[in-house]
């Protein structure tokens, strides 16, 4: 264990922890932007600078390990001035286009610019066009909004171990580029960690602002991983999927189906009315008519040929409660154990 002092408070943490870890443990807030707890420390944004007694220059808290007896200051006039300047420099490359940005309302940069009361983009630089190509058509890259924090690059490398994207170019011309496009799985891990609106979903763009949607937490409908996700709902339509960090098995990650495979919910092809087949053709029917017909036919077959002449298939896509009722219906009402589902398929 290592003992140190942060803002005059004595803190004991495990060896190998960073100053940022120690501060978090003590409930001391240091502003961050590129730091993300699921990623290896990046140290690109310099928002988390802190002063360490005896060192001439401030250090980034997210990358500096604790050392025995050091005295750290997280808030001073000098540090705040540096952080303000850092933000202003980011705004050289980042237009204040918050009114048209998908991320508006839950953007880390927007929050910090607001917190530091920066009202205009003071600095200008010669504009260099960056390419907007990206690794997948499902995600749009807005190079103007990219502050080069590298979270997306780190997520693709650290969480997915793919390395599909990286920085290409230098200076004001540098941008994120698909360096191994064939490796991209369109999982959207990069969107998940992007602190600004530099990466947005290409399916639901402009369909709803963050504060206009209702987010409902549920369990994914695809494989058996059981990922937790939030359906983003507006006007009774699912218009996107978001996740929360640390949420159970997936810890905020999703795959391409979980993040982008929601369109079927609102598909025009959904069945909306019971159908009864007559003379080889389907005709829309009222619920009562359809249910009466099913009950009547099943009863007739049960009476004529016995309970075991009827079988039921339940569903691995339905809920536990529905599966329970289906087997109860077959066993208690029809009187057969002919009940199965696609576990083997």
């Amino acid at each position, binding site marked *: 264990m290592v003992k140190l002092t942060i803002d005059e408070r004595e803190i004991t943490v495990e060896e190998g922890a960073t100053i940022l870890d120690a501060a978090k443990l003590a409930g001391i807030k240091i502003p961050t932007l590129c730091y993300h707890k699921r990623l290896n420390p990046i140290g690109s944004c310099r928002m988390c600078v802190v002063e360490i007694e005896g060192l001439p220059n401030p250090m980034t808290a997210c990358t500096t390990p604790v050392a025995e007896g050091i005295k750290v200051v997280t808030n001073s006039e000098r540090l705040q001035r540096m952080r303000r300047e850092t933000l202003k420099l980011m705004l050289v490359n980042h237009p204040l286009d918050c009114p048209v940005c998908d991320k508006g309302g839950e953007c880390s940069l927007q929050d910090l610019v607001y917190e530091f009361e920066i009202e205009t983009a003071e600095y200008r630089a010669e504009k260099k066009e960056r390419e907007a190509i990206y690794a997948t058509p499902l995600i749009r890259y807005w190079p103007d909004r990219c502050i080069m924090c590298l979270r997306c690059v780190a997520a693709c490398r650290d969480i997915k171990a793919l390395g599909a994207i990286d920085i290409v170019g230098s200076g004001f011309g540098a941008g994120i580029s698909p360096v191994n496009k064939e490796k991209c799985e369109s999982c959207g891990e990069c969107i998940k960690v992007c602190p600004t609106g530099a990466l947005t979903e290409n399916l639901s763009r402009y369909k709803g602002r963050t504060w206009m949607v209702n987010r409902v937490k549920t369990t994914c409908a695809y494989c058996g991983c059981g990922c937790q996700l939030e359906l983003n709902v507006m006007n009774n339509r699912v218009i996107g999927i978001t996740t929360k960090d640390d949420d159970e098995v997936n810890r905020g990650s999703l795959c391409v189906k979980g993040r982008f495979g929601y369109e079927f919910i609102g598909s025009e092809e959904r069945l909306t009315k019971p*159908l009864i087949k007559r003379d080889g053709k389907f005709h829309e029917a009222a619920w009562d008519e359809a249910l009466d017909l099913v009950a009547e036919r099943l009863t007739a077959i049960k009476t004529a040929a016995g309970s075991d002449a009827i079988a039921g298939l339940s569903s691995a896509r339905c809920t536990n409660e529905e599966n329970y009722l289906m087997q109860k219906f077959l066993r208690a*009402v029809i*009187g057969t154990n002919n009940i199965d589902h696609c576990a083997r398929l």
Partner: protein
Amino acid sequence: MTNPIADLLKSEVILVTGSNTTECHPIFANYIKEAVLRKGAKLIVVDPRKIDLVDYADIWLRAKPGTDIAWINGLILLIIKENLQASEYIKERTEGFEELKAAVEKYTPQYVSGITGIPASDLMEAARAYGKAKPASILYTMGITQHITGTDTVKSLANLAMLCGNVGVPGGGVNPLRGQNNVQGACDLGALPNVFTGYQPVTGDEVREKFEEAWGVNNLPRTPGLTVTEMFSAAEEGKVKAIYIMGENPLLSDPDMNHIEHCLKSLEFLVVQDIFLTETAKYADVVLPATSFAEKEGTFTNSERRVQRVRKAVSPPGEAREDYRIICELSGRMGYPMDYKGPEDIMEEIRSVTPSYAGITCQRIEGAGIPWPCPDEGHQGTPILHIEKFVRGKGLFFAIDYKPPAEPTDEEYPFLLTTGRVLQHYHTGTMTRKGRGLNMLYPELLAEINTDDAVHLGIGSGEFIRIASRRGDIKVKSLISERPGRGVIFVPFHFSESPANALTINALDPIAKIPEYKVCAVKVEKA
């Protein structure tokens, strides 16, 4: 799964077999990668295809499809020869070791190599890695189970895990990754022909009496019913006259599609309850519009046995109704009123008749899911099974011999067909083929064929090929690749316009009745 997936971060060795984890369980694959890259775990992949996970593996054994028992027995023999088995564990916690030892005696590396195509030295390397690891985890999926020897192969994997003391310990286990969001729950809740909820057998007199009392009925059927694969054959024979299908698409998902089509046509009455007019629904007499996961409340149970909440986000389209309401309506019309206020009410009944779910209430899982068994409301759930002792008491080793697949290749049908999924699609495509997004990425079926085979047959990448088995044929675009070995063709089964299951064989494992999707004989030609 015996262990939670996060346990992989405690494993020294992870053995993945018959699982294309990065495509079929991408989030579980994140844990494998993290274990390998950040925690220093060794990864052994045994798979006939050079799947993406091979890039992260220390050892890759390319076994011929359908030869799994041979290499597993081979590993067991080598581990015993090298004296790497967990002798204390075997003595205290298991039985049948001597029988196992005798059964694997002939599976020398040379003998195994002849069956599987795995070089003897690679097998030795894998045996030492798995044998020395404390603990080691095994992950598998349908590549292991969808064979006529599926049950035996799973038992063989359990043999291997017990041999090294890896069952009932953190970071160990025998872990089947479940392929569908609630396939675990459907099994748990008794949607199986031989058991009620919580795997309580229908043949048990006390069990039946309990359910008769709880449900207020007499004479619940006492003999196990038909499995899905048997139901359709029984329909063809005229024994089953009506089938009620909720949320399944057997025409595309079951083996030998032409046979299933014939079976469906033989029925007197077919009801399909689904969210789309599926390929199967087109054969129905009545179609009932149901709700998707986004339109209902309830619970799903994931691969880790964790019971988690499903929440309603939107209202159903048109007149579509929740599946539970439809069943209640039908039941009432057939003289057995079901009066539930909603899913929570049903869960209360489930708890009262299912010991492993007894402690799981909707309120308790509001924040985070609970893994069963959870016997009472004070219980925290059971992330790891078989700690200290096995459910049956002693862990039983099974002496198992290798048997070849049902349909070997021959001169007329020289290729081995194996089927599966791709990352962008899910099962019969009912959900994933409806939107733009996923179909932009993977718009049409591609059949993987080995480069050498393609050259030999004069097929260029992207050219159409015809694949034929004794049961049917399909025309598909080819994807020339190093992924399948020579003589192996891989076809995903999501696509109704060129259905892989027109080719597959309805040969079943005698116990699990699972079809042998992973091996049948086909011929391939330029279309």
